């Protein structure tokens, strides 16, 4: 954020510091190669989802029949519904917990704040299998049957820190006088937060919500351990299909996943970048 305030050095090269042209060519070429590595498999997946043949390489013409078959697949549709329920509920909880906590930690001094910061960070980087098995142990001991509740709890646990951190980043650019002004005008801290701070934070909140939703929707590993037989989500079904082998229906499903992810990422980037001032 502060970079924008720094004076722009005259005649700055737009993409690399002054250096040999070879260096620029190298970095550019390397980046293109890595992007090719990242995208070619995905593009092939998408292209072959429209192939009118079960055999992979052979192109037998354009079709959308695999997408049609997906729509008639009751099991997948039910899993899709479960995924929406879990991702939706986890996102709401994650946004609530993450936003309030980000504000409080920014605004007030708590004892052991460093430790707390580390603790918040742990669910983001903890190996998912550990989170999965430890939550499973907890739920079994508390006698909570595995199902929607346990899934939503588990997903919220790894989602809210992402919201928190995104909101915290935006708070760094907050003008402190904004809240002071609100309080001078007689607003309670809660009212000032709700009427002044939350609107300011809205782009970060929306971006965090989109990310929570995507994270939860895609989550497989934590889900294995914390879902019941009635609350199977889409990734569990996808895993089952991947295990079986190549299947154009799965290509079609993957294409939908990729398209949805791309839309969510672009939308969340849009909100993250949105400037208020």
């Amino acid at each position, binding site marked *: 954020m502060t970079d924008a305030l720094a004076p722009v*050095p005259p005649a700055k090269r737009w*993409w690399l*510091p002054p250096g040999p042209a070879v260096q620029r060519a190298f*970095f550019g070429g*390397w980046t293109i190669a890595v992007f090719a*590595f*990242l*995208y070619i*498999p995905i593009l*092939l*997946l998408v292209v072959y989802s429209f192939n009118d043949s079960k055999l*992979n390489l052979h192109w037998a013409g354009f079709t959308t029949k695999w997408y049609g078959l997906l729509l008639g697949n009751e099991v997948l549709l039910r899993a899709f519904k479960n995924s929406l329920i879990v991702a939706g509920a986890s996102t709401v909880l994650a946004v*609530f917990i993450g936003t*309030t906590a980000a504000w*409080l*930690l920014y*605004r*007030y001094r*708590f004892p052991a704040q*460093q430790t707390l*910061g580390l*603790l*918040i*960070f742990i669910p983001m*980087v*903890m*190996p998912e*299998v*550990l*989170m999965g*098995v*430890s*939550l*499973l*142990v907890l739920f*079994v*001991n508390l006698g909570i049957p595995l199902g929607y509740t346990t899934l939503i709890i588990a997903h919220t*646990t790894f989602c809210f820190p*992402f*919201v928190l*951190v995104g909101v915290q*980043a935006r*708070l*760094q650019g907050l003008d402190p006088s904004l809240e002071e002004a609100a309080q001078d005008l007689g607003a309670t801290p809660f009212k000032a937060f709700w009427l002044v701070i939350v609107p300011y934070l809205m782009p970060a909140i929306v971006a*965090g919500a989109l*990310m929570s939703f995507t994270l939860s929707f*895609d989550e*497989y590993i934590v889900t*294995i351990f914390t879902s019941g037989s009635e609350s199977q989500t889409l990734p569990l079904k*996808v*895993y089952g299909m*991947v295990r079986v082998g*190549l299947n154009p229906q799965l290509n079609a499903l*993957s294409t939908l*996943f*990729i398209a949805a*992810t791309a839309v969510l*990422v672009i939308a969340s*980037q849009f909100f*993250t970048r949105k400037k208020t001032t």
Partner: protein
Amino acid sequence: MAITAATAALATSGPSPQRRAGPGPWFALTPMLGWLLLFVIVPTLMLIVVSFSERDALGRVVYSFNFENYIRAFDWKWLKILGISVWYAFLTTVICLILGYPVAYFIGRSSERVRGLLIMLVMIPFWTSFLIRTYAWISILAQEGLLNALLMTLNITSAPIGFMYTPFAVVLGLVYNFLPFMILPIYTSVEKLDGSLIEAAYDLGARPARVFGQIVLPLTKPGIAAGILLVFVPAIAMFAITTLMGGGANPTIGEVIQNQFTKARNQPFGAALGVLLLAIFLFSLWLSTKFRRGEED
């Protein structure tokens, strides 16, 4: 861009206009504190407790206190699995660093418009389900996959080559999955890098290798540390990719833990292996925190 913000937060914590928290803020913070306590700390402690327990004939946990599970875990068989997992994760981390660093550098030093677009291109695979990205490679590498079909059409081979279910396939799957986790934090560091330092070095006649070694590399170390943390530990524990790409014949530690909790129904032993993994995780976290603190001083 929560993840880049997250990785940036790894390195910095700026001062803010803070007041001492009274009962109101404490009360408002309880949802998060309670959540962390109940769903992160308590489960982890319970996992440790279970790791010292036994199971009955039905696979239920019988609480007791013994070291049986750990003695069993330190058997050569399991240590070898752990060793292979760490080795795969190490290879993955090194390859991701080599592939990712120049990309992160290139993106970080490009103009703001281009930067936004490129970083979005890194984010899309990052947020796409890893199952789907793994499937993308399976459809290329499988016996009846695209690569074999291509090779056979071109008459390079007459029979399909077994790319799948090899260590190569496992590491490829891991690299493909974790590469964005390496690029993003390094990018955050590069973005913060003051370009005039580099220009000054060049003006003073430094050669590119020296500029990189003495300016760029030291200043992007926090990003590298964060990237390693985000790739290495999760790669050790990752199991679905390794099962799909490796075929399950040579399981990784994550696969074994999953099996103990599901098929084998031996939660105490799975928990003991989990605690070992937890120790590796906490050690790495401590190391990277220490490293970053050292950088700030």
